């Protein structure tokens, strides 16, 4: 187990560089700042660019430029900064530009606080900006996954020419754990559509404007077809002790780490409980969810937001079994005991 011990926020940068990312544009914000620190430290000496932009608005547009130029590029922020990036992300989606956005979620709304929350779920998973678009959303729950899913994000972004988020919370960003880094990727995929200042690319156009309604509708339909493929092919979820489970706990990010402990504890007490952890939030892991709903008595969704995740679970389950919510907000992290007691309470009810 030869590993390196470091912060999630640092692992995601090192992983990105191994994945061929050579450009970082961002604006500092707690609890995501270490991502900028690491990028500032490593990007230039790995042959890349780091700029502390004048704002998140500028940062995402620098990303737009670098992505247009065919680079693997990333930015990172948290709640308020993500809100500011939304216009630019909509443009990236419209222009089909691959890029990676890391969101280390903090407490909201407004300035909120810097403790971990999951309240960016809607603004990230539902697109957040204007227009009929989707972004792929990966939700790591460990420092190792900050590296692994961070690297995967670049592959998916290029594969689908689409923005990809790495969505996690202040805890996963701030915590340190052992990580094993893979070898760097050989070569990033050729992007013949990009503008590179060459003769071959001088007919290329990066744009999101389509004046004619029929053209824009066709463009939208093409995007929807792409999202349908993503939904079909890219669902990822982790199931933990779900084999004979009658109760399924659902949560992502830091919550799933707590749920895992809760499951172990309840199992010791003889309760048949398991956990489903969405690793992709878009595409939502509908397949495993519907499958588990066939044998479960009820689902309990645990989140650090106001029911943003449970809404999606309920949409999938369509009332077939009860889907309950246990949540905390404001930067409070649900404790093992709270969730344990909630499960016991619901068992008595059902």
């Amino acid at each position, binding site marked *: 187990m030869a*590993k390196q011990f470091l912060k999630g926020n640092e692992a995601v940068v090192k992983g990105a560089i191994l994945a061929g990312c050579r450009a970082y544009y961002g604006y500092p914000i707690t609890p995501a700042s270490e991502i900028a620190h690491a990028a500032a430290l490593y990007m230039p000496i*790995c042959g890349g660019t780091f700029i502390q932009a004048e704002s998140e608005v500028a940062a995402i547009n620098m990303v737009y430029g670098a992505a247009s130029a065919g680079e693997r590029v990333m930015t990172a922020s948290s709640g308020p900064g993500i809100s500011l990036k939304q216009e630019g992300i909509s443009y990236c989606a419209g222009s089909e530009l691959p890029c990676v956005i890391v969101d280390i979620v903090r407490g909201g709304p407004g300035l909120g606080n810097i403790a971990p929350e999951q309240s960016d779920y809607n603004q990230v998973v539902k697109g957040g900006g204007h227009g009929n678009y989707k972004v792929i959303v990966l939700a790591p729950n460990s420092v190792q996954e900050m590296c692994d899913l961070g690297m995967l994000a670049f592959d998916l972004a290029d594969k689908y020419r689409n923005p990809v988020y790495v969505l996690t919370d202040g805890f996963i960003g701030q915590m340190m754990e052992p990580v094993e880094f893979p070898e760097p990727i050989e070569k990033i995929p050729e992007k013949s559509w990009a503008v590179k200042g060459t003769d071959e690319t001088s007919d290329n156009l990066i744009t999101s404007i389509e004046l004619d309604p029929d053209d824009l509708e066709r463009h939208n339909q093409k995007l929807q077809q792409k999202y349908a493929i993503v939904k079909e092919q890219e669902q990822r979820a982790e199931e933990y002790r779900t084999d004979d489970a009658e109760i399924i706990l659902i949560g992502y990010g830091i919550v799933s780490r707590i749920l895992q402990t809760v499951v172990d504890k309840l199992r010791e007490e003889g309760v048949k409980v398991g956990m489903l952890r969405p690793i992709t939030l878009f595409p939502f892991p509908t397949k495993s969810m519907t499958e588990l709903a066939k044998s479960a008595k009820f689902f309990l969704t645990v989140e650090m937001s106001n029911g943003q995740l449970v809404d999606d679970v309920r949409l999938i389950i369509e009332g077939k079994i009860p889907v309950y919510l246990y949540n905390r907000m404001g930067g409070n992290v649900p404790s093992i005991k709270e969730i344990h007691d909630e499960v016991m309470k619901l068992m008595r009810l059902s």
Partner: protein
Amino acid sequence: MNNILKKSSSFYDVYERRPGADKLTTTYCPGCGHGVLHKLIAEALDDFGVREKTIFISPVGCSVFAYYYFHTGNVQVAHGRAPAVATGIKRAHPHSVVISYQGDGDLAAIGTAEIMHAANRGEGITVFFVNNAIYGMTGGQMAPTTLIGQKTMTTPRGRTVKNEGFPICMSEIIATLKAPVFVERVMIGDTKSTMHTRQTVRKALKLQIEKNAFTFIEVLAACPSNMKMTPSRSRQWVKEVLADNFPLGVKKDISEEFEPKDLSRMVVKNSELHDTLKLETAKVDSEKIAPYQEKMINEEIKVAGFGGQGVLSLGTVLSEMGMRHNYEVSWLPSYGPEMRGGTANCSVKISKKKIGSPLVANPTVLIAMNRPSLDKFEHDVISGGLIIYDDSLIDRKPTRDDVDIIAIPATKLADELGNTKAANMVIVGALIEYKDLMSQEVVLESLGDVLKRKNLIELNQKAIIRGAEFIKNLKK
């Protein structure tokens, strides 16, 4: 207009991208300044032989469709953000010629931050700023450059200083910055001024091609449609009225003395990346840690104290050492305002089992380095747990009688070793000795890999030994 545009080979012959049947004329109104400026730029790109290398950024505004015409790499961007996009492109392709083309709403209103900072960074791009004193595309609203008294859709009684302030002079502002190399305000008025504009456009582009210089060209131009003037009347207005309010001329020129800017990046081989990223992995000495492989370790440790006492690094050292004993480990700091208040704490888990939540709510071990920490966390410790506290700083004993308690004068012992800061390592030594968590030999050997301050390694090793001795003496 159409004929003028088609002359240059930096334009497409046929505007295939333009929707509708008409693929030969531009979308600009007769007499519009954009069309003329396009021509001047295209001609310069031709003459300098850089069409292929050029990446043209179309803004939001009437020139949003510049990409219908320019046979160059084209990127259409969000309102006001062209200089930021240009930054991303130029940094990726330093050899390219990047043109940020913007109107006065785009550059001087919604995009002021982006232009100021691209200019201030001295990005190797050329900015063409078309000042027509109005919002063309959206139908004639006030621009930041609209003149006092000028009537627009949103200043129906004329712009007033009282309500809207003064027209903004961007060239003068940009010229106050250090990085821009060449800043000039020109106009498309009569033939003579247009010919001068042609020279200026060429100079600006050449400075990018040859020196990667940031240049900023403000072009006073007409929007006959929104001014409700004939093309010739509108040009006259530019010359007589607009130029009177926005003085023409060079605002800054350091092109002679400016050294060409090298924008190329470091070349780093893939094979060097692991080293550059410092991905060295922790050494595990399987022989020395063998006695610890059978132990059922499952510690949840809360470390708390003042900021500056090395509370967080106490936690990372424990975790790092745990990792070197093949334990599962996690470390989670308190962060943000909690820290600014002067206290800090971290959660450390060291276990043989996979770690769930990294947060320690009910510690098996509490390490309290100051009184507030003892007060705050004492009652969270599990029954049968352990409290280690620095009794050289904490003036009360813990009140719990269902836990083990170690009072250790860590700060005093560290002082005796010559540095108060080593108190945290005294505690590390004490804890691993008391719990027989890890091999002291391994801990001492790996300390150099773990600590950032290499000059303090010896001191900290001594501190660990001192902490362990203290426990050995207690046990005697």
